[in-house]
């Protein structure tokens, strides 16, 4: 009954614009990362900088990419660690 009233007044329970927005959000994660060649490289460089404060990593074999499922996107980083640094090293400017 409530559905019927909603429909009468034009408020559909599952708004198709919300579906549109969600699909756009996901597809643009992919598009923006893929179409800007500097994007992934920049991200990788920044990650190396931060992580190197804490451990020595193998930059040659590290891998950073996006993994997609039906309704989410995850950033996957596979970073081989050579060895840990002693304690936390904070780089002072």
């Amino acid at each position, binding site marked *: 009954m409530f559905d019927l009233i909603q429909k009468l*007044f*034009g*408020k*559909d329970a599952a*708004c*198709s*614009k*919300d579906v*549109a*927005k969600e*699909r*756009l*959000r996901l*597809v*643009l994660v992919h*598009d*923006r990362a893929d*179409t*800007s060649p500097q994007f992934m490289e920049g991200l990788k460089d920044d990650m190396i900088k931060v992580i190197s404060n804490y451990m020595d990593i193998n930059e040659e074999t590290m891998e950073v990419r996006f993994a997609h499922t039906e309704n989410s996107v995850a950033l996957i980083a596979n970073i081989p660690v050579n060895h840990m640094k002693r304690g936390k090293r904070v780089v002072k400017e």
Partner: protein
Amino acid sequence: MGDVIVITSGKGGVGKTTTTANLGTGFALLGKKVVLVDADIGLRNLDVVMGLENRIVYDLVDVVEGNCRLKQALIRDKRYESLYLLPAAQTRDKNAVNPEQMKVLCNELRQDFDLVIIDCPAGIEQGFKNAIAGADQAIIVTTPEVSAVRDADRIIGLLESEGKHNPKLIINRIRPNMVRKGDMMDIDDIIEILAIDLLGIIPEDDYIIISTNRGEPAVASSVSAASVAYKNIVRRLLGENVPLMKIEDNDGFFSRLKKVFNF
């Protein structure tokens, strides 16, 4: 020295040419000296939308190749003395011109005009690169559809990488009754996704089809909703602070009720 503005979108059919024609005519209505440049070489259409298709002698490629002087290729509008069109070539392709030549052309045009408005072809290839080369500012036209917004996002990225910062957005063909029902993305949804400045919104309007049939841009020949929306955008581009048009819902239950009871 005039400003060079490119109207672009990525996706075809979202209203670039209609927007170019209406903004140009809108500026001319306010006494500005304007030239519209059709950069869609091989698929020219701005001439028919302006109703000037029978007056073309020379075109953009003729100018670039030196077959005629720039002034010979410019067509004066039927109604407005300060409005001109530089038509695209129809029998050539996008590679007939390069970005460097477009820059030179735009700089020559801006000497004589207050505004140079370039109608960019759909796509992201040579034609797009040519169209944006000489522009100071880009206006992106989109519609409230997934495909058009996605392409707009791609164009924003490409403009950025070409050093064209802060493009402005026009959301075209908004259907208020569908927005009300939650079946069309609204202004806030699109701005949230694209994260650029909104220049204006244009409601879906049958009069655009009628005015295109006649070859008379809507801003000049009507007081329809789209016409008012385009006039508002023109004033904003001239630095005026014009509030966003209220999108009227014409076929909703409540608006019909309102009309019946006249409140």
